[in-house]
């Protein structure tokens, strides 16, 4: 019964959304350039299912590997700046400066570095975009600890690394997961935009630019749909991981 009540709102929203979209286009009959109706997009998905499946795998690989590398780098940098003051004084301003660069704008430059058709340049864009929110949030969580909890650990003779393990890391987990949920959709956006400029020719980003160039808008929308589903799946995995790794956080809290 409860399950049903939870599922009902998104299902109703989907029916109203897609139904309204279809109906509106059927009534106004604009050019296919503007927006194809959902039925036509569904047709395009069916027609190009192999190409879209391949593209989803290619882009998915770039997104997942880039996301993992960016997350690991972000956590490592956060630990470094927490443990060593000099690391904090050099690394944090550097990270802020790098973040000020519009990173997707670097995609064509990365192509020159890694080769126009190499997926490496696309991965590099994902890593660069994911790194910053993970780094900032995780280091905030590592530092934002109740002072008496640190004093408590010191009173037991615990050293810096033991305090990081027992207090700072668990304390940083809610901060980290907030960033991870943001990073999942960022990673998909970064990969697809990077693919507009180069990388493998059978990826989602290329299908979108090529189809649009040939005025096959329904095909472009079908690829966009695949990208959205990928983003939702990754976000859902992050939420699931959060639930599994810190059940204590959700006690007595409605989340």
């Amino acid at each position: 019964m409860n399950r049903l009540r939870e599922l009902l709102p998104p299902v109703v929203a989907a029916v109203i959304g897609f139904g309204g979209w279809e109906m509106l286009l059927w009534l106004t009959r604009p050019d296919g350039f503007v927006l194809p109706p959902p039925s036509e997009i569904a047709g395009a998905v069916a027609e190009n299912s192999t190409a879209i499946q391949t593209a989803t795998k290619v882009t998915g690989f770039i997104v997942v590997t880039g996301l993992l590398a960016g997350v690991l780098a972000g956590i490592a940098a956060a630990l470094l700046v927490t443990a060593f003051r000099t690391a904090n004084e050099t690394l944090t301003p550097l990270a802020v400066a790098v973040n000020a660069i519009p990173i997707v704008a670097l995609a064509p430059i990365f192509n020159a570095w890694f080769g126009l058709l190499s997926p490496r340049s696309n991965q590099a864009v994902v890593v660069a975009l994911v790194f910053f929110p993970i780094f900032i949030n995780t280091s905030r969580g590592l530092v934002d600890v109740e002072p008496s909890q640190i004093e408590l650990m010191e009173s037991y003779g615990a050293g810096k690394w033991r305090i990081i393990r027992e207090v700072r890391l668990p304390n940083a987990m809610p901060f980290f997961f907030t960033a991870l949920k943001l990073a999942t959709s960022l990673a998909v956006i970064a990969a697809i935009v990077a693919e507009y400029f180069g990388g493998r020719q059978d990826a989602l980003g290329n299908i979108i630019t090529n189809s649009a160039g040939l005025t096959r808008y329904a095909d472009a929308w079908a690829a966009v749909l695949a990208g959205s589903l990928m983003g939702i799946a990754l976000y859902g995995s992050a939420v699931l991981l959060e639930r599994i790794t810190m059940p204590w956080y959700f006690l007595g809290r409605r989340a």
Partner: protein
Amino acid sequence: MTPQPAPAVEIRGVTKVFNPAGANEVLALDNIDLDVAAGDFVTLIGPSGCGKSTLLRLVAALVESTEGNVLVNGKTADQARLDRDYSMVFQRAGLFDWRNVSRNIELPLELMGWKAADRHRRSAEMLELVKLNEFADHHPSELSGGMAQRVAIARAMSFRPGLLLMDEPFGALDEMTREHMQNELLRIWAETETTVIFVTHSISEAVFLSTTVVVMSPRPGRIAAVVDNELDTRDDSARDTPQFFANVSAVRKVLRAGEPR
């Protein structure tokens, strides 16, 4: 003549300056001398800014003295910290949300490298001591303030330190819970024969709990008087005795005398 046992804590000529030579230099403690005998229950009382919490942190080696010496069981305070000669309880229980009640109590034992079976046995004993047996598997977010503070005391006592340092541990509790916790603490103190140094700004709390009340005055922090606090009974009934009221008045008089006018 029986030889005098060495004091649990010896404080000799201790001065603490915060931000020395800085624009906001503060003389927090000025030339403090104090002995705490083993088995005593000593409270430090005084208005805010008298340095009572700083003095406690000096004994815990969480703060370094500018001048003078602090010895705990005849060792430097820092050596005593590394040897786990004492345990501390703060105003905020400071339990770890990611550990259940048992595992919070076992934290110091884990840091000391105890085996799991020994840790579990000891945390069960400690839960017995603070009467929270049925809450072993609960998480801190499911406890009331008083219960959380009892877990913090169980954690502090888990490795049976000879010295317990308490920094306004009941300051955030309501009056009813507070009196209950005071009774419990006296019972635990009597059962475990621990030496206690207890910081408070409540006169009645100081008189009810301690064998010695150390009255401090602010700016700079000094010891204004050391009052021997004799009570014929040491349980809840003592709260209504003439002796209790007389001792409360005595401490209040010394505190008032130390106030700047």
